[in-house]
C-alpha cells in the first residue's frame, strides 16, 4: 500500500518595474506609509488606470522563460470583492484570458529530469498592506497598492514537498535571472500558496484539497507541506477525509491552523475592465522580447559544459546564479584556463560566499583579481597555500593580489641555492625523521617539508623542497 501526494502551487511575484501597474507612482519597496500614492492607486473617484507596458513586457519574459503560450489578444478584468486593503472594491486582474497560457519548466530530481506544467501566468495589481496593532487598530499602507504582480499557477504536478521546493528554487532563480522580480520572500515580493492533497494508491481514495497560505519562506513552505502530507495520510489511515479548507502555517507552533472552510468558491463577478482598452500584443514585440532575453540557466549550463569542458555538476553550480556565471566567464576571459578557474571559484570563492552569506557581486573580489591570483599560483610565483591566504586578503581589503604579495613578501622561493640552504639545516636538526623515513614511515617526509615551509615562512616552493629533501637524503644519509 502507498500514498501519493499531489501538490500544486500558486505563486505571486512582484515585478520590479520602475513604476506601478496603472500609474506613475514609484514601485520602490517600503517608504513612509502612504507616500507612494496618487489618485489612481488610491482609487479616488474619477481616476483612471493606464496599463504599464513594462509590466506586460516583464510578464511576457516570464512566460517565455517558462515556455508558455503568449495570448496576443487579452484583456484586464475586474475581480470584485470588498476588503480594506483594496482601494476600488475590485482588483484589476485577468480572468478567462491570461497573458500567458500553458507552459512548463523542468526540475532535477533523483530519478532524473521532471517536468512541471504551468496552468497560466497572468498579470494583476497588488493590494495595500494591513498592520494590526497591539491596541486592536488596523493600519493601512497603500504604498503597495497597484504594484504589478504576476500570478503563476502550476498544475498539480509535484508529488513531494522536496519537488515543490526544487520547483520554487527553479522559479526564483529564473525570475531573478531574467530580471523581472527581486524575488525576496522576506520583503513579500515573492509569495506562495500551496494546494495539497493525498491519494491512497490502492483504493484511489483522495483527501480534499487543503490550501495553505501565509508562507513566508521556502523552508516554511516545505515544513508546512510535510506537516500537511502527514496530516492527510493520517486522516486517510483513520478512514476519514480532510475538510476542504484554507489553512495557514504557524512557524512558531510548527503546524498548520485552519483559517476558513471553503464552501462554494467566492463569486468575484469577473467582468472586463472598461477603463482599459483590450490588449493586443504584436507578434513582433514578443519576438523582440524573446531575442532580448538573457540566456536562461539551463541553456547557460549546457553551454558551459560544451564550451569550457566542465562537468554537469560544476556547470550547474556555476550557473545557479547569474552573477556567479558572469564572474566565472569574465575571469576565464582574462585567464584562459576554465578548469583551473572553475576549481578556484567552486572551492575557496564559493566557500567564502557561503560563510559570509553574500553574493559575488557584493564582495571586493573582481574577475581581474582572481585571474591575477591564479596566474601567480600557476607561474609558481606563490604557492597554493599562499594563494588561499591572498584570496582571503582580497576579500577583506579589496587590494589586488600583486600588491598583497609584494607588501607581505610572499613571493615563493624557487631559487635552488636558497631552498637548499634551508633543507640542509632542517635535515641537520631532524636526524630522527630521516631515520623514520628510511624505515618506511612516509609521514616523516611530510613533516620535513613542513619544517622547510615553516622556516621559510611558507614561501619555499613545496615541490622543490620535497624533491631536494629526497635528493639530499639519498646523497648524504
Amino acid at each position, binding site marked *: 500500500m502507498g500514498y501519493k501526494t499531489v501538490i500544486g502551487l500558486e505563486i505571486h511575484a512582484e515585478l520590479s518595474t520602475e513604476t506601478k501597474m496603472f500609474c506613475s507612482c514609484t514601485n520602490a519597496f517600503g517608504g513612509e506609509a502612504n507616500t507612494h500614492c496618487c*489618485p489612481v492607486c488610491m482609487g*479616488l*473617484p*474619477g481616476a483612471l488606470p493606464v496599463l504599464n507596458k513594462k509590466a506586460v513586457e516583464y510578464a511576457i519574459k516570464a512566460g517565455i522563460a517558462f515556455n508558455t503560450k503568449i495570448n496576443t489578444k487579452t484583456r484586464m478584468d475586474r475581480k*470584485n470583492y470588498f476588503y*480594506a486593503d483594496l*482601494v476600488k472594491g475590485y482588483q484589476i486582474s485577468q480572468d478567462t484570458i491570461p497573458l500567458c497560457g500553458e507552459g512548463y519548466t523542468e526540475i532535477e530530481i533523483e530519478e532524473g529530469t521532471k517536468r512541471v506544467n504551468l496552468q497560466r501566468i497572468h498579470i494583476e495589481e497588488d493590494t495595500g498592506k494591513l498592520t494590526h496593532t497591539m491596541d486592536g487598530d488596523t493600519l493601512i499602507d497603500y504604498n503597495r497598492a497597484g504594484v504589478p504582480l504576476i500570478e503563476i499557477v502550476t498544475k498539480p504536478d509535484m508529488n513531494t514537498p522536496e519537488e515543490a521546493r526544487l520547483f520554487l528554487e527553479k522559479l526564483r532563480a529564473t525570475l531573478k535571472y531574467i530580471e523581472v522580480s527581486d524575488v525576496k520572500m522576506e520583503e513579500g515580493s515573492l509569495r506562495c500558496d500551496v494546494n495539497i492533497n493525498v491519494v491512497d494508491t490502492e483504493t484511489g481514495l483522495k483527501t480534499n484539497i487543503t490550501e495553505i497560505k501565509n508562507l513566508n519562506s521556502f523552508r516554511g513552505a516545505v515544513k508546512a507541506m510535510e506537516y500537511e502530507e502527514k496530516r492527510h495520510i493520517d486522516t486517510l489511515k483513520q478512514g476519514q477525509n480532510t475538510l476542504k479548507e484554507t489553512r495557514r502555517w504557524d512557524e512558531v507552533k510548527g503546524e498548520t491552523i485552519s483559517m476558513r472552510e471553503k464552501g462554494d468558491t467566492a463569486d468575484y463577478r469577473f467582468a472586463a475592465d*472598461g477603463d482599459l482598452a483590450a490588449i493586443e500584443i504584436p507578434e513582433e514585440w514578443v519576438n523582440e522580447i524573446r531575442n532580448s532575453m538573457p540566456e536562461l540557466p539551463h541553456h547557460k549550463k549546457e553551454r558551459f559544459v560544451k564550451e569550457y569542458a566542465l562537468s554537469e555538476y560544476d556547470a550547474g553550480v556555476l550557473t545557479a546564479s547569474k552573477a556567479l556565471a558572469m564572474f566565472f566567464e569574465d575571469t576565464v576571459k582574462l585567464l584562459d584556463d576554465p578548469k583551473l578557474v572553475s576549481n578556484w571559484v567552486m572551492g575557496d570563492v564559493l566557500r567564502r560566499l557561503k560563510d559570509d552569506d553574500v553574493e559575488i557581486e557584493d564582495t571586493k573580489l573582481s574577475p581581474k583579481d582572481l585571474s591575477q591570483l591564479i596566474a601567480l599560483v600557476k607561474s609558481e610565483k606563490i604557492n597554493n597555500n599562499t594563494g588561499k591566504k591572498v584570496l582571503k586578503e582580497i576579500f577583506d581589503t579589496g587590494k589586488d593580489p600583486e600588491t598583497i604579495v609584494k607588501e607581505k613578501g610572499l613571493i615563493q622561493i624557487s631559487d635552488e641555492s636558497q631552498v637548499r640552504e634551508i633543507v640542509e639545516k632542517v635535515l641537520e636538526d631532524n636526524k630522527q625523521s630521516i631515520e623514520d623515513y628510511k624505515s618506511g614511515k612516509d609521514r616523516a617526509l611530510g613533516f620535513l617539508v613542513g619544517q622547510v615551509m615553516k622556516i621559510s615562512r611558507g614561501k619555499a616552493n613545496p615541490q622543490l623542497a620535497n624533491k631536494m629533501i629526497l635528493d639530499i637524503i639519498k646523497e648524504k644519509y
Partner: protein
Amino acid sequence: MDITKLTAIETKEIIKKRELSVKELIGSYLDKIDSVDKEINAFITLNREEALKNAEKLDKKIKNGQSLGALGGLPIGIKDNIVTKDLKTTCGSKMLENFIPPYDGKVVEKIKKEDGIILGKLNLDEFAMGSSTETSYFGETKNPINMEMVPGGSSGGSAAAVKAGEVLLSLGTDTGGSTRQPAAFCDVVGIKPSYGLVSRYGIVSLANTLDTVGVLGKDVEDAAFFLSTLTGFDPLDSTSSESAKGETIRESIVNKNDINTIKGMKVGLPKEFFQTEIDKGISREVNKAIKILESLGAEIEEISMPYLEYSLAVYHVIVAAEISSNLARFDGIRYGHRSEDYNTLDELYINSRTEALGEEVKRRIMFGTYYLSKSNANSHYERALKIRRLIKEDFDRAFGKYDILLSPTSPILPFKFGEKMTNPLSMYKADLFTVPVNLGGLCAMSIPCGYENGLPVGLQIIGDRFKEANIIKAGLALEGGLKNGI
C-alpha cells in the same frame, strides 16, 4: 442691458473689446445666481471667492496687454460628478457630501488653462442615476421654463443653470442621455461627443464604456465652441482616442450663417424610433424641424434598424453591471461617509453604504450585482454585450448611407415633480432615443425645435463616431432655419 442674456460668443466679444471687465461680468452672473438660484437650486456648491479672484487676475492680464485663452473670462458651471481640485465634488450624494478632491479632471484642467471661470458645481441625480434630478441628496432642481416641472436629468443642474442665465456654458455628463434629455427639457443645446473624443479622467464613473462628458450652451455655436476647447487625446485615459481633435469642430462652426451647408446631406429617420409612443406635440414639432432641414436641401429617408428596440434593456443591464463595480470604492474606508455604528469591517461597509446611498443607487447596484453573478453573467451581462454589438452594427450600416440620423430627443415632455419617481421603468423610458447613441459610442446633439403647451421640444441629431462636424452643421442650419422662419 441684461448681460446674462447674451451668448458665450457675444460675451467673449464684449470682453475682448473691453466694454466690460471680467470682474463685472462675473459679478453680474453671481448676482443672477443670488437672485434666482434659491428657487431653481441648480448649484450644489458656489465657487464665489475663487471666481472673483480669477476674474481679477484675468482683468490684470488684459490690462497688461496679454491675450486671454479661448474661454477667456466666461462663467462656467460644472456638473458635480466631475472632480475639481480643492472644490467639493459630491456627485449629488450624501456619500461624498464633504469630499474635496486633491486633483482636477482633465476637462476642468482644460477650462482653467483656457481662462474659463468656474462659478461652481451643479446639481444632478445622485451619481448621475436618473432622468429628472430628483434623486439628488441636495434637493431637486427646478426647470426655469416652468418651475413645476423637472429639468430632466441627470445633468438637470447644468441645463437649468444655462437656461436661467446663471452660467454661460456648463459641463454635463452623458451615459444614456443625461446631457441631451435635460437640454431638451430646459430648451438649451446639449452635445454628447463621441466616446473617446474628450478625456474621461476625473469624471466619476457611472458606466465606463458609455460615459462621456457633455456640453451645454444657449445655442449650437456656444455648445460646439465649448466642446472644441475640451477635445484631445489624454494619456491618462486609455479609452481616449488618439485621433480626437477639436479642429474639425471649430471648422464646422465657421460657416454658421451659410444655410446651404447641408445641401445634399443624407438624413436617415430610424422608423423604429418614430413607431414608438411619442407625445403628439413632440411629433408635430420634430416633423416641422425635419421639414425645415428638407427645405434647406437635406435628403431625408426612412430607414430600419431592427436591433434598436433592445437598446433600453441592453443599456439597463450594462449600466447596472458597471455601476455595481464602479461604486464599490465608496466603502467608507478612505474618504466619504463612514457610519459611526459598526463593530466589524463588514458592518462598517454595510452601514456606511446603507446610510449614504439613495434608493435608485442601491437599486442599480443590486441589479448589477445580480447580472454579474456567476449564474447570471452569461444570460444577462454577456448577452447584453452581444446585442450591443448588433446595435452598433445597425448604426454602422446606417452611417454607411447617411450623414446624420434624426429623432426626438425624448418621447415625453418635461413632467411634474414626483410624477415618475414611484415607477422607475417609466422614468427609464425617457431615455429611449438617447441610449442607443451611447451604446454605439456615437455623437449626438439635442437642439430646441419648438413648444407644446409652453414646454420645450428637443430634436436629436445623431452623427457617426468622430463626425461631430456633421451634427453641428445640421444644428446650425436648423437653428438658422427656425430663426428665419423657414
